[in-house]
């Protein structure tokens, strides 16, 4: 494979695969909790966070991590305490983030180019530092999910019984929200805010088509996610197309194939 002899391609491959694994692990919980759109909402909020960072000349990753984490916890708490539907809470928070972002961006028009790079990401321009940051964040997510795997599965399947089994449901929900916030911020540099939602949803949705158990579904999602990054980078290199777009389209193809596979399997077992 000649293309991965370039350092920038190696960094792209590793940061992309790490991000996609984090997304796949979180995505399955988010989808089953009907929270698939939280990534979408948080990415809008991250946009506001980036604008704040650029405006005050602070590292945008830091400001957006702060803003997004607070918003993610806010969404969980509002749902819990005020009985607002989760998607409504997401809608409210993301609109505020987007509105703030637009206003701050227009107040100082000079950083519009920078802002664009966060919207669309640039996986081929990942620095070594950013690669190390992604490694650290992905490891955090990976270890958290492994340690709390069964509890997260329990609160996702049946929160009430989980609570009556002494599980700390609200703390675990906050953990999930924070991990998602971290992932969104991690993803904005790599695939961009507009596409990080896709990585949170599509590989896991693909795994859900055929997984027979939770563990199997999780592994399948991770496989789909990392294969999409790998193939997406190859297509982008040789076809000279944007990497993030290629990655997401390939993930979608995986989803479509597994979906068709499931449908055909049902049909076949009905007629045969």
């Amino acid at each position, binding site marked *: 494979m000649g293309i991965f002899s370039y350092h920038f391609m190696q960094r792209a491959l590793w940061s992309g695969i790490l991000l996609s694994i984090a997304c796949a692990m979180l995505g399955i919980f988010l989808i089953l909790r009907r929270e698939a759109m939280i990534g979408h909402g948080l990415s809008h909020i991250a946009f506001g966070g980036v604008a704040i960072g650029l405006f005050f000349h602070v590292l945008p990753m830091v400001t957006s991590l702060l803003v997004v984490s607070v918003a993610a916890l806010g969404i969980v708490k509002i749902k819990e305490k005020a009985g607002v539907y989760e998607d409504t809470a997401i809608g409210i928070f993301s609109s505020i983030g987007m509105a703030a972002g637009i206003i701050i961006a227009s107040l100082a028009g000079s950083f519009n180019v920078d802002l664009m790079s966060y919207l669309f990401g640039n996986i081929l321009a990942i620095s070594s530092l950013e690669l190390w940051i992604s490694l650290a964040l992905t490891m955090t997510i990976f270890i958290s999910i492994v340690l709390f795997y*069964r509890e997260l599965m329990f609160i996702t399947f*049946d929160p009430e019984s989980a609570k*009556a*089994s002494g599980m700390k449901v609200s703390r675990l929900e906050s953990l999930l929200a924070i991990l998602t916030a971290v992932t969104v911020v991690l993803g904005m540099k790599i695939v961009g805010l507009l596409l990080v939602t896709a990585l949170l949803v599509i590989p896991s949705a693909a795994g859900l088509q055929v*997984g*027979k*158990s939770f563990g*199997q579904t999780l592994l399948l999602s991770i496989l789909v996610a990392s294969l999409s990054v790998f193939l997406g980078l190859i297509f982008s290199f040789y076809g000279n197309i944007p990497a993030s777009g290629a990655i997401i389209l390939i993930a979608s193809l995986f989803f479509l194939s597994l979906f068709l596979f499931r449908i055909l399997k049902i049909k076949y077992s009905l007629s045969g």
Partner: protein
Amino acid sequence: MNNQCLVSVENVSFIYSKTKVLSEITLKITRGDFLAVIGPNGSGKTTLLKLILGLLQPNEGKIQILGKDIKKFSLWNKVGYVPQKATHVDPFFPASVLEIVAMGLLSSKRFPRFITKSDEKKIDQALELVDMQKFKTTRIGELSGGQQQRVFIARAIVNHPDILFLDEPTAGIDGASQARFYDMLDILNRIQKITIVLITHDIGVVNKYIMKIACLNQKLIFHGSHDQFCQSSVIEEFLKGEQHLICHRH
């Protein structure tokens, strides 16, 4: 250990937004009891159970479980719970029967709660008790409602709890399966010595197994043994002629 009070509900009242659902309930559940909680729809049966399990907080009164105030209670592995409408399972949820029953073990484990080989043995035993070991690797959504209900019972008893709460566990289960189901509860109660609290509408079935009855309709109308229940006059009107179903001994 006999006559030990496992659950004590003292003067408990509960209000949902504005309507009073439970009013001044006082009730003790003793070790070894097989208690049926009956009452019409909306009489507060599920609410009472949720209060006992700490899922809701009472507006007035005190609740103790296994000798501890519910707010400070932590021995969740001694308590089994099969919620009402447990059968409303997301048909696409990708968990196997094994993974569902494993959830029941978490309360008896310390962090990090990994499932070991000896845990799998416990899961096998629980599945055997409810006669579902064949379906260990099946996805929960691919089972029938009655089979799912058995899996939830396996999850509730996998820790060998001291007390098992079941909220209308046989709703939507066919007659033959229901009879087998109650036989199973009877075995859990008499042989495994698990105290059972059963919310039910099948008062016909209650007759054969139940030792004690609690009759709820916002207030606790009756609480006592089966025989006392049949001699009581308060409940005649309450059951509207169905009393013979419970009190006719075979």
